[in-house]
């Protein structure tokens, strides 16, 4: 009888990451972190003798993932002594012609759903029937309702549904109707695709990505552990879920308000005060400078000046405005070259180019003493 199971997915093993500096260095470290999270999950399952491990898609980041990565996963699953593994594929690692799942011989304890219609696998020793569908192409605009409706559950079994898709979504990532999924009476509905872990009543859960993958993924990440209490007389199952966090480098976003009074060193100091030194050396930081800056201050090298104080830092100055009253300038210089110049700058079509051109021009004007 099933007593506990792990719900995880969205590992995105082999993922190339995007960093503004030293992308391959930080990317490599991040991939190591993904592997560490995966191996931690395997170790946890082994040590805690978890009988069932469910992977709800996107185990690999791409169908072009390295063969050695696929073999490494297969070998890791092979080390599980008392755990059955059930996998569905997702939009990243869909089981198409070039499926990563064809690049390894999978151990006997691993079952992979390979169809995009609902099928089931019954694990007799656990009295558990797992229903699932895999992605075999990279987009699904409709849920395979017909195949879903054909599902018939046996009440005496613990029934689990595995799907990789978007609840309430309307795009090409397999839109899911939660009410429809719940209507069948599954004992647990385990979902993948959304990277933020989330649990809803009715034992519906998104496991989230085991570690955050970008600046959009803040908060705790890990894998879900579900525990089942069985009422043998009435064949009723009571499931409770909990997030087992996995230690990893977090992504931190900080908005630093800047005023014209701030000197360059003030700005550096303000940025450094955004967190403790220990945290700065641990996590990925995106520093967003906001407000108004003295146009005489140039931030071209601010990232380089901050690098030593952070494990990783990238600065975003796109929301920073120069402390110059352009309107006043224009108003006061309507009939002169300055006015012509500023007006022409404002007429640049590309907004990014326009903003930069304006900043550089004002910097130059300041340099020339125009606005001093």
């Amino acid at each position: 009888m099933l007593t506990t199971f792990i719900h995880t997915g969205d590992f995105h093993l082999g993922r190339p990451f995007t960093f503004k500096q030293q992308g391959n260095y930080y990317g490599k470290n991040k991939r190591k972190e993904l592997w560490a999270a995966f191996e931690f999950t395997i170790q946890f399952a082994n040590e805690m003798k978890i009988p069932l491990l469910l992977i709800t898609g996107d185990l690999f980041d791409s169908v072009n993932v390295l063969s050695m990565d696929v073999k490494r996963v297969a070998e890791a699953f092979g080390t599980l002594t008392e755990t059955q593994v059930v996998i569905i594929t997702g939009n990243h690692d869909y089981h198409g012609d070039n499926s990563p799942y064809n690049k390894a011989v999978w151990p006997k304890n691993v079952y992979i759903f390979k169809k995009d219609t609902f099928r089931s696998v019954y694990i007799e020793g656990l009295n558990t029937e797992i229903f699932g569908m895999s992605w075999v192409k990279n987009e699904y605009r409709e849920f395979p309702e017909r195949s879903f409706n054909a599902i018939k559950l046996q009440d005496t079994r613990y029934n689990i549904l595995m799907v990789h898709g978007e609840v309430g979504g309307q795009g090409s990532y397999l839109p899911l109707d939660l009410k429809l999924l719940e209507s069948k009476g599954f004992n647990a509905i385990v979902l993948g695709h959304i990277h933020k872990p989330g649990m809803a009543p009715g034992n519906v859960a998104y496991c989230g990505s085991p570690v955050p993958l970008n600046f959009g993924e803040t908060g705790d990440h890990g894998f879900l552990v579900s525990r089942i209490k069985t009422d043998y007389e009435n064949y009723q199952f009571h499931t409770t879920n909990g997030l087992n966090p996995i230690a990893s480098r977090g992504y931190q976003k900080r908005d630093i308000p800047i005023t014209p009074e701030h000197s360059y060193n003030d700005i550096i100091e303000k940025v450094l005060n955004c967190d403790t030194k220990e945290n700065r050396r641990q996590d990925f930081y995106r520093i967003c400078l906001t407000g108004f800056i003295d146009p005489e201050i140039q931030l071209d090298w601010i990232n380089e000046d901050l690098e030593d104080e952070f494990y990783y830092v990238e600065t975003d100055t796109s929301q920073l405005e120069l402390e110059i009253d352009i309107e006043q300038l224009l108003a006061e210089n309507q009939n002169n070259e300055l006015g012509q110049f500023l007006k022409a700058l404002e007429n640049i079509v590309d907004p990014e180019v326009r903003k930069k051109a304006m900043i550089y021009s004002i910097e130059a004007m300041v340099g020339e003493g125009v606005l001093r």
Partner: protein
Amino acid sequence: MKIKTLTMNAFGKFKNKTIALEPGLNIIQGNNEAGKTTAQAFIQGMYFGFYKPYRKKKTYGLEYEKYLPWEQLNYSGALIYEVNGREIRLERNFLRGKDSLIIYDNTTGEDITEGFQYDGVIRQHLPLAELDMTPGIYNSTVNIRQLPVEIEPGPQEEIRECYLKMQRSDGNDMNLKGIARRLEEKKKNIGRSGQSKSKVGLAIRKRDDLLIALKEGEEAYAKVALNQETIVRYQKRMEKIETENDFFVQETAVNHKRELLQTYEKITELEKENTQLAENIKGWEKLQCFTYDKLEGLKAIENQIERLTDQMNYIEKEMNDLEFHLKSIRQKEESKRLCLNGKNWESICEDYETFIENKASPDEANKKSTRSLGVLLAGLILVGIGLAGTMMNGSCQVSESLGNVFLTLGIAMTLVGVIGAGLLAVTISKSRKEQKIRANNGVSESILEKYETDTQEDFINYFKKASRSQKELEQMKNEGELLSVQQSRRQAGFEVLFEQRRGILKDFKTQLAKFGVPSVEVYAKGCKKSQQTEEMKLHFNTNLRLLEGLYETVNAGKIAGGNSLWDKAPPQAEELLKLGKEIARLEGENNTLMEGVSLPVETTEALKTLNSQIDACDLEIRACDAALEILEKIQKESHQDSAPELNQHIGAILGELTQHYQGVKIDETMKVKVVDPLVGNFRDAEQLSAGTMDQVHFAFRYGISDVLNRDMPFILDEPFARYDHQRKTQALKLLGELSQREQVILFTCGDGEGQILDALGVAYHSIQL
């Protein structure tokens, strides 16, 4: 406009310092560090404050800190000027947070601040707003600050700046060329794709390399992926084959393992055995001299001793037997002699002969007949009983009458026999009583008495008995003598054997002592052990040879029989082998493919970073280009709009100053050129001496001030430092002319200006700092 009084309550180094100025030319003289530049900055500060222009928030300029008094408690001053016949007093507090400007009508004392234009950012009113005088225009036109001594391009830049400002009818302080130059510098710092050492050039070159590396990596890893899929297919095929041959394969595998295990066990066993054997061999090495030949010899000696002992025992037994016999014979002799009742045989013989002579012998015929009759009667009884018995039990198949006859006959015969026997016994008894009565007569009776016999017959029987005893006694005597002889012989033989055995035994014991054993049995055990040692050595060597073979077996994957462990190939082994080889080949190929190429994922990441950097640079370049394009367009228009008459005016001033250069021209690239009258060509301003550059600069400033005709004092700080006397004179002459129209304030450290002015006859007001 004429400035009348400067009152520095607390400003820079000055504290409660008042300077009174006059209309016309004012020469403020002071040595270095006297505060000339500070006083000049004070005028600027009083009019405009020290704020950065066009800010959305009030921002203090660099001068604020520069002239902040040390005590920092008071930072203020007042300036009185006259404009349009009205005397106005400006009272300004410069101190941050308390900064303010109050404008008074100095005649009435009325606060007229509200009558002036208000600036919402600095939250102050602007006293010169009506004149469209901003700090930029002020500093670029009427206020000539001290030029840095060392700079060469400085004047050139300032000339350009002035020229540009001069072009503008409203005197705006835009320096297009300077801005363009800075944008070009910015662009240069970013670099171009062709510049390998520039930021963007380096990034682009690296990106190109990475793109090649990515292509190679992707191709290699795509091939690796294909190979891997093939490998997986082969592995699955192998698995299928193995499943098909499951039993056999499993059995074979188990057997292989078992055989290997057995080999290992055998090795262990042999090694263990050899260890034990080696120990035993070592322990039994000293028994090597124990030989079976020697044992046989010892055994022969021992057997000889045993034989001798046996013989001796036998002889001894015989001697004992003889002794016993002899003793027995002696006892029998005694017994026989007792039968003679103490009488010797000779006397008995004599008595018998005497008795026989005196007495006839009894009737033998009667005796014989009586005996025969007895036998007859006995036979008759037996026949009668037999006949009667046979008839009675009917065993004879005869007629009843004949049976009755025979029965009667049998009974009759039996009765006759019994009666006859009774009569015979009475007859015999009667005869014997008669014989006794006859013997009692004479010698015979004395002999009978001597020998205590009753009758003749008794005596005869006695004699016969004595005779037999005598014969036996003689026989016993003979026998005893024979036994004695035999015993003597045995004794002699025994002694010989004893001596012989003693000698052999001594030699035997000596030999045993030589081997340190107490007996042949122990020696035999030694021999056995010696033989075992040899056997053990043999066994040991055999084991060694076996071990060598087994080691080879284990190392070379062979089983004990010498056949290869893997010889027992399962069905479809060839295909399995082929698939295995193919997998190995593909894995090898994959390793080769992956060597020397970078991981596409890492290359992609590096590319992403580079692309991001290149995109950022590209954006920056495009922004610079866009701004430069606009600037260029404005510059061209500006150049086209330039007033040639202004150039002529400035050229005339320059000619007057230098007495040499006549014309000034700003070309399309905004380079300032002056006309060299000697050759008639334009010369770049950069080619002029520093002093001449200063004069060109002065000419520009003077010309602009002249042309702009704004009612503002013309303020100069040390403008003639690098002028020669002649040119300084010309400049002062010009200033003298200008001071007729405008107030001129000249800051200088020397006193030469006064002398020149005196010589020129120009009126001036001298102030000593």
